[in-house]
Each structure stands twice: as C-alpha cells, then as structure tokens.
C-alpha cells in the first residue's frame, strides 16, 4: 500500500509520514500541489492525504485536476480553515473523506485505513470477532451463543467497531459515523456509550474484546 501525503508544513508532514509508516504503509511526501500532480502521474497511489492550504496551487484545485484526469485514487482532505461547509465543498470536488485540523493522528490513520479498504469491504451479513457475532440483517448480537440486547445506537456503534476488527477507531470518526455529528460536541458521549457497550459484550465474558487506547480511541480485538 502506497500513500501520498501532500502537506506544506514540514513537521506535520513528518509525523504523518511516521505514523503511516508505523502502520506498514509506504509513504511519499510532497510539499506543494504541482509536485503532487507530477507524483501522481508517475506513481499509482492507494490513498492521497491532501492538505487544502498549499502554496501556489491549493488542495481543492489539485483534487479537481486529479478527477479531471480520471484519477479515482481515494483522497482524504485536511484543512485548517475550519469552514463549516468546507467538508461539503471538498466532497463535491471529489474527495472521499475530510478531516479538519488539528486532527488526532489515530483518527487520520484510521481514516486512511478505511479508504484503502473501501473497495474490498466485508460483504458478509454476519460479522464476527472471536465469539462475538453481529447479524447486520436481523440486528442480532450474540456472544458465545448468548443473545445480547442492544439499543439502536449501541448496535450502530458495535457494527462500526466490528467492521474494523483490530483497528483503532478515533472518537471523531465514531461521532461522525455512528452519530452523524460533523462537529466535536466536547462531551464524553462516545466514552459513556463505549462503557455501556463494554458492559454488555465484555462484562460476563472472557477474553475482553473492546479496548480503550488512551488518547487515541477504541479498538475491538481478540488479543489485549
């Protein structure tokens, strides 16, 4: 998997590269839009992480140029402008995801990960981690053959987590996908829901599956 990071701020580019490399991605970095367009012509990438504010040609213009060239590489936009409707603008321009700065690194990695998986998503209707199963048709959750009662929101949270087993899911990403919030409400809503879900799926069972990664997010996996 090869990722292109287009970011003019050197330090940001550097830790983004380190984080993605730590996840096993090959990472190329460009510091301006023209270099990025040249790089995409030469190399096929699996995901492009594109900052909107770039010197010279800006990120949205790079994105439009890419899409005009029929380049369908998934693009994750980064932005420090914090425009409320910038997300919509970016998605309309052909972006696949959008992350406002300052972002959480875990969030960025999780989103890149999600974009690389987009095509090959699990088509099965019964999702499974260890002895925990979730039927996406009947909305039935079971652990070790025992039925678990879930509220609608808990179901959506579990479905989101179980679709990325073993992968870190950031708080913002959960808020966006499970609650459809495009803002950080500054509440501990996610933490409280995760705690409740944990009581239902983990309290009476071993091994524990739902883990907290301090300062990063949550992960559903078999090994601690």
């Amino acid at each position, binding site marked *: 998997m090869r990722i292109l990071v287009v970011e003019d701020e050197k330090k940001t580019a550097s830790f983004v590269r380190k984080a993605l490399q730590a996840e096993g991605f090959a990472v190329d970095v460009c510091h301006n839009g023209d270099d990025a367009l040249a790089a995409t012509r030469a190399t096929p990438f699996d995901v492009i992480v594109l900052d909107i504010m770039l010197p010279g040609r800006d990120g949205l213009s790079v994105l439009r140029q890419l899409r005009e060239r029929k380049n369908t590489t998934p693009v994750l936009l980064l932005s420090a402008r914090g425009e*409320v409707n910038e997300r919509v603008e970016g998605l309309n321009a052909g972006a696949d995801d959008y992350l*406002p700065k300052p972002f959480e690194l875990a969030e960025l990695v999780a989103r890149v990960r999600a974009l690389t998986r987009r095509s090959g998503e699990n088509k099965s209707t019964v999702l499974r981690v260890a002895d925990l199963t979730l039927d996406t048709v009947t909305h039935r959750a079971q652990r070790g053959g025992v039925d678990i009662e879930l509220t609608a929101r808990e179901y959506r949270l579990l479905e989101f987590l179980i679709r990325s087993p073993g992968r870190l899911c950031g708080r913002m990403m959960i808020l966006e996908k499970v609650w459809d919030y495009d803002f950080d409400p500054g509440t501990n809503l996610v933490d*409280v829901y995760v705690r409740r879900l944990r009581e239902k799926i983990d309290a009476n069972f071993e091994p524990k599956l739902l883990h907290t990664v301090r300062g990063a997010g949550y992960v559903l996996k078999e090994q601690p």
Partner: protein
Amino acid sequence: MTIRTRLSLWYAGVLTASLLVIGVGTYRELDEQLRHNHRREPEEHAILETGELILQVGLPAVLLGLAGGWWLTRRALAPMAELTEAINKIHERNLREPLSRTGNGDELDRLTEVFNGMLARLNDSFNRTREFTLHASHELKTPLTVLCGETETALRDESLSAAERERAASRLDELRRLARIVDGLTLLAKADAGQVALKLEPVRLDELVRDNFADAQILAEPHGIQVELAACEEITVCGDRHRLRQLLLNLADNAVKYNQPHGQVTMSLRRAKDAAEFNIANSGPGISPEVLPRVFDRFFRGDPAHSPTVDGCGLGLSIVQWIVSAHNGTIKIESVPSKLTTVIVRLPLAHENKPPL
C-alpha cells in the same frame, strides 16, 4: 431648510394667529362698549370691565398659544424621535446598515450623517477585531496540529515508562481541549463576520429531540440523573440539521453537567402559537439573577464556587445562542437558584421561517 428657519417661520405663524385672535376679540369688545357709550359709568366698573376683557380675549389667546407651541415643538422634534428610535436599534451586528437620512439638509440630517460616519468607523474597528480572532485561530491551528501529532507519536513509543505515558496523555488531553476552544472561536468569529452558511431544509425537530433524549439519558446515567421527555409534538422547522443537533446536545450536556448528583432533567417540545418551543429544565444549583444576563458571553464562567469541576471550552452557550439566532429564533433562561433552571428555545415553524441573511 434648517431647523432654526423652520422654527422661526412656524413661530411667526403661531404668533400672527394669536395676535389676530387678540385683535379681533378686542375690537368686538370695544365696539360693544362704544355703542353703550352714552351711559357713563363709575370708575370701579371700568376696572371690572377691563378685567373681563382680558379674560374673554386673553384666555383663548393663551390657550391658542399653548396649543400652537405644543404642536410646534412636536413637529420640530419628530425627526429627533425617529432618530432616537433608529439609534436605539443599533447593535454590534447591524453596524453596516447606516441610518436613513431625511436629505433636507437640516441640523438633524447633518447629525445623522456624522452618526453614520461614527457607525462606519465602529464597524471597521469591529471588523478588525473579528478578523484578528479569525486569523489568530487559523494561525493557532498549525502549531496545535504539530503539537498534538508529535505528542501522539510520542505516546506510541513502546519504551515509555508508565509515568511518562501518563504525562504525555494528560498533555494530549489539554492540547485537545485547546483545539476545541480554537474550533469554537473559529466558528464564532466566522459567524460574526457572516461567513457561515447554514444548509437549510425542512427538519423534523421532534426526531432530533428524541435522539437527543436518548443521548441525554446516556450522559446522565453515570451521575444518577433522571431524564424525562415530558412532551414531544410532531413539529417541522426549517433549519440546518447538524447545527440543530449541536444546539440540542449542547443544552442537554449543560443540563447534566450543571446538575446535582441524582438530579432531574426534563425536556419537552411543544407547538406554541407560531413557534416550536423546546424546553429543558434541570434541578441544579441554578444561576443567580446577577449572573444570568452574562451566561451567553464568550468564556463566561459563572460563580467559580458553584461549578468548580465542570470542564468545557467556555463557548458552548455562545455557540448555542448563535445557532438559535441564525435560525431566527429566541433563547431565554429562567432560573430559580437551587430549584429549577429552564432554557427555553423558540424556533419559527417551517412555513414561516424565512432564510436568514
């Protein structure tokens, strides 16, 4: 025509009319006396008659003068009253709209012109402050991104000791709080500058309230707080779905945060005449009357003794207030300290809500 000329002319008119009345009255009275002239009367009678004369002629003249004077000053001051009314409506958000001028070149017109000049200068200065906030929050984002990113990278280092890890994680928490403050500031600065466009569509408010009720129950549970949905009528408003959810969640979060352990939160959505009325009440310590008018101020934190451990970015209610006013609604807080604090939000119903500017 200047006010001085106008006043002089009107006054001359009133004076002429009064003199005419006096003249005509005196003439008729004298005429009558002349006809009865043959009867000579004693001196004391003459004095009495003069008094009568003054009363008969003078009184109407005085009354006319009073009425005329009243009418005159009222006419002269009418533009002043209009100007006062217009100035009274000025607040920081409509500084861009100048007061309308009469255009007749009088002193008041000149005053309006000078006042408009002052408004323009004030507007410039407000704009500079807004731009400063906006630029400041943008400038803060880049170093914040770097700091958050590097701290997270450091946390991934397996060789960190537990104590080092704890320190880094706590630093990260604070950095994220800072990031939320910067986010809130950016949003408000943009809203002030009129740069936030709402995505308006018909929204079933009752559905959002039900969702919010579920979230509020979850938020309240760890504190043993009971949440109740007293009423939820089917109501559609024209609004921005995301902003309205942000509004509701913010109010619910506050109702839980500023409550007491094992307290009570009651919310309701009802149709009230031509508006949707959302009420959310909590049984917390409440807000004292002297603090109440300031709770929507940015970074305002009431009495520190009452809310020592509540965290947050200090911009929640300011954002709430912006969302409500952007939807042409109103928000009000009523508080009976240590009994009940109610937030009342009214939003226009769908068909009556005109898109905000």
